[in-house]
């Protein structure tokens, strides 16, 4: 039975094609209808597919559809095909669902912007590539989507391409991603070399014959290279630097691409390749360590940021770190669970931030906000829900997902990683409540009539608003917020752990994906250990750990409350007291400067002095110019033979004849 899954990605592509090629002449209503219609249909179709999927017998999962051969080269061939299992189903629902909500929101947010049709065409093309990425049935097609979302991201970050910073941020994102893509490509080459093709089913089946690598070997290499790719796309150390800059794009883009969907591609890829990572414990450990370090590193930067979107950007990086941490302790289900809840609450956070920015006419600096809960109560409530969710208070979504990751980390024996994770959770809570208090509480810190001509978002074209009082956003922006708020509250309830009397439904749903190709020897499923013996004790431990992380969140809340609500004079004093450390963290640990000095400067120097001035200008241009000059000189010499003087011609003829005769005579003599 075919589910005609190709419809899901191709609908947004059609929308992008129509809007992108013809949209310039369409009125906004038509652009809206095409863009929203295509994504909405895609989402509804995905829902129908989900219903059908639950009806499939277990032996038909994964459901693979093959459409055509894409390319054949020798024994290698790749095809257009779709691989639908529990994992890709979850991803498809997230991408289409959250994506659709953000499309709706964008209608309100982008209303006054130029390039309206272009924006929606880009959003749709992004949806197409992301769906290709998650639905592909081989790594090569996944790579197409992988590169495609990078392209869409580049286009959308640089949407206001007339602004230098936006254009540069777009390039930075693209180039940083290329570094990761390079690693991913080499991983794919290794897979082709050793397994002959890139189809998921055959590669994974071939992998079952491989034992777990206790020392570094082929699979470790593949796993680490894939991790390099994932760090690029999912903004992990060391390649995370592009994501904060990506906030130059319109806020719905930040929500869609740089929070909810695209950046999760790396997590998805790691989870999808679980058959590789399960057999390469070193690579898996690297995933966990990088994830944990990123989580705390980004969280610590987020504490001092003043730009509301930058705070959220670093929080995204930090949350992605949690997902990697989950995947890195082979708790892929927990990672994907957090991916899902994160998609809800981070989209909500970004869209709420967008509503604030919209309502303030382009202001992004939290120091110029404050007291906004009176002006925009609906946004305030949505933001409140999102803030409490990300901080990890029960029974909101992130509580369940984050604590599952932390618990699995603890259970896998990585106590240190767990500790760092909990500290990062406290920091998360602190900076999120800092944001919350700074924006919504206290007094509005700007003159109501002040001219807001210095907004960052390129969003200053609100002719009819003028620099008026902060105002609530239109309903078309608020409704998606409310839906996401509901999801942020309830999204975690599908995975209530057994320790809290739930059934961990989400994990069990995803389980077949991660157990089918698991190594036979190692017991990679903590869930089964949980059910075997010492169950009671384990549950007690799990509850205790939950208590610890909730306590961390509460400490973060209290700290933020004290510093940014009760004693608002204190942060400045503390900043002075901390001195150099404060500015060091404020400057994001000077990582950009470090990369600039160690990588970018040398590359520029080498490119300028060796490649440009040396190889290009001297060697290549030189060879070309010299040969041209040589030809010119020779021609100039020959030109003088053609004097127009008949007797000189005759002389040459006679000379030539003499030479020929001399030659013949010489030959005759010999």
């Amino acid at each position, binding site marked *: 039975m075919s589910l005609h899954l190709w419809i899901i990605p191709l609908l947004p592509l059609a929308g992008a094609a129509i809007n992108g090629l013809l949209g310039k002449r369409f009125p906004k209503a038509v652009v809206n209808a095409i863009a929203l219609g295509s994504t909405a249909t895609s989402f509804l179709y995905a829902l129908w597919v989900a219903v059908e999927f639950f009806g499939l017998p277990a032996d038909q999962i994964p459901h693979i559809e093959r459409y055509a051969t894409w390319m054949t080269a020798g024994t290698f061939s790749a095809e257009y095909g779709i691989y639908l299992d529990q994992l890709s189903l979850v991803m498809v629902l997230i991408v289409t669902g959250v994506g659709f909500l953000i499309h709706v929101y964008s209608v309100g947010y982008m209303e006054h912007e130029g390039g309206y049709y272009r924006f929606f065409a880009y959003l749709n093309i992004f949806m197409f590539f992301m769906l290709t990425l998650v639905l592909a049935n081989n790594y090569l097609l996944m790579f197409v989507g992988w590169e495609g979302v990078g392209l869409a991201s580049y286009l959308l970050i640089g949407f206001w391409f007339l602004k230098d910073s936006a254009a540069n941020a777009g390039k930075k994102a693209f180039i940083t991603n290329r570094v990761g893509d390079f690693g991913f490509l080499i991983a794919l080459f290794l897979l082709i070399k050793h397994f002959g093709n890139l189809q998921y089913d055959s590669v994974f089946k071939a992998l079952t014959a491989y034992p777990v690598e206790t020392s570094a070997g082929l699979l470790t290499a593949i796993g680490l290279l894939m991790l390099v790719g994932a760090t690029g796309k999912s903004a992990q150390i060391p390649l995370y630097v592009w994501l904060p800059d990506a906030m130059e794009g319109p806020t719905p883009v930040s929500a869609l691409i740089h929070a909810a969907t695209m950046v999760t591609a790396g997590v998805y890829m790691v989870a999808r390749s679980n058959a590789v990572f399960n057999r390469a414990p070193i690579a898996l450990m690297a995933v966990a360590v990088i994830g944990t370090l990123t989580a705390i590193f980004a969280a610590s930067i987020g504490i001092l940021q003043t730009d509301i979107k930058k705070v959220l950007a670093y929080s995204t990086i930090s949350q992605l770190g949690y997902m990697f941490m989950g995947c890195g302790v082979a708790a892929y289900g927990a990672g994907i669970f957090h991916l899902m809840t994160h998609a809800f609450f981070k989209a909500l956070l970004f869209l709420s931030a967008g509503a604030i920015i919209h309502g303030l006419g382009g202001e992004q600096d939290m120091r110029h906000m404050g007291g906004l809960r009176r002006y925009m109560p609906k946004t305030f409530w949505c933001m409140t829900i999102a803030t409490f969710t990300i901080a990890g208070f029960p029974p909101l979504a992130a509580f369940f997902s984050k604590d599952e990751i932390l618990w699995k980390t603890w259970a896998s024996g990585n106590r240190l990683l767990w500790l760092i994770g909990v500290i990062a959770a406290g920091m998360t809570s602190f900076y999120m409540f800092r944001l919350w208090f700074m924006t919504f509480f206290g007094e509005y810190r700007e003159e109501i009539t002040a001219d807001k001509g210095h907004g960052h978002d390129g969003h200053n074209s609100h002719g009819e608003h003028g620099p008026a009082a902060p105002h609530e956003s239109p309903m078309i922006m608020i409704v998606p917020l409310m839906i996401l708020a509901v999801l942020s509250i309830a999204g975690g309830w599908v995975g209530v752990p057994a320790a809290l009397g739930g059934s961990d439904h989400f994990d069990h749903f995803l389980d077949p994906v991660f157990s089918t190709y698991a190594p036979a020897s190692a017991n990679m499923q903590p869930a089964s250990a949980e059910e075997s013996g010492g169950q009671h004790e384990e549950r007690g431990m799990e509850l205790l750990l939950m208590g610890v992380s909730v306590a961390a969140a509460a400490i973060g809340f209290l700290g933020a409350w004290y510093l940014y609500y009760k004693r608002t004079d204190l942060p400045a004093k503390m900043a002075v007291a901390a001195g150099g450390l404060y500015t060091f963290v404020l400057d994001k640990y000077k990582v950009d400067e470090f990369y600039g000095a160690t990588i970018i400067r040398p590359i520029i120097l080498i490119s300028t002095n060796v490649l440009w001035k040396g190889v290009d200008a001297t060697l290549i241009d030189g060879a070309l110019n010299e040969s041209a000059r040589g030809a010119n000189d020779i021609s100039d010499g020959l030109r003088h033979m053609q*004097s*127009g*003087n*008949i*007797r000189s011609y*005759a*002389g040459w003829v*006679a000379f030539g004849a003499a030479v020929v005769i001399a030659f013949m005579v010489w030959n005759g003599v010999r």
Partner: protein
Amino acid sequence: MVPLSYYLVLSAILFACGVAGFLIKRNIITIFMSIELMLNAVNLTFVAFAASLRALSGHVFVFFVMVVAAAEAAVGLAIIIAVFRTRETLNVDRVNLLKL
């Protein structure tokens, strides 16, 4: 019987005279005559070889050359007269309108 080489040497000398005259002289009539000299030097070679090898084709060639030379003389002198009428000179160095 005079040996063949005598004829050939004489012919070579005549030809060289023709070439030298062609290269050195400026008067177009003299140049023209030098050309005739070269042609006839060749003619001499032809007949010498024809007689020595007893082959008729050499004689036939000489007749052809003479016919061509006569035609050439007619056409060439006509051109020279035309040139002289327009330019009033026989110096080839001054007949250089086509020169760049």
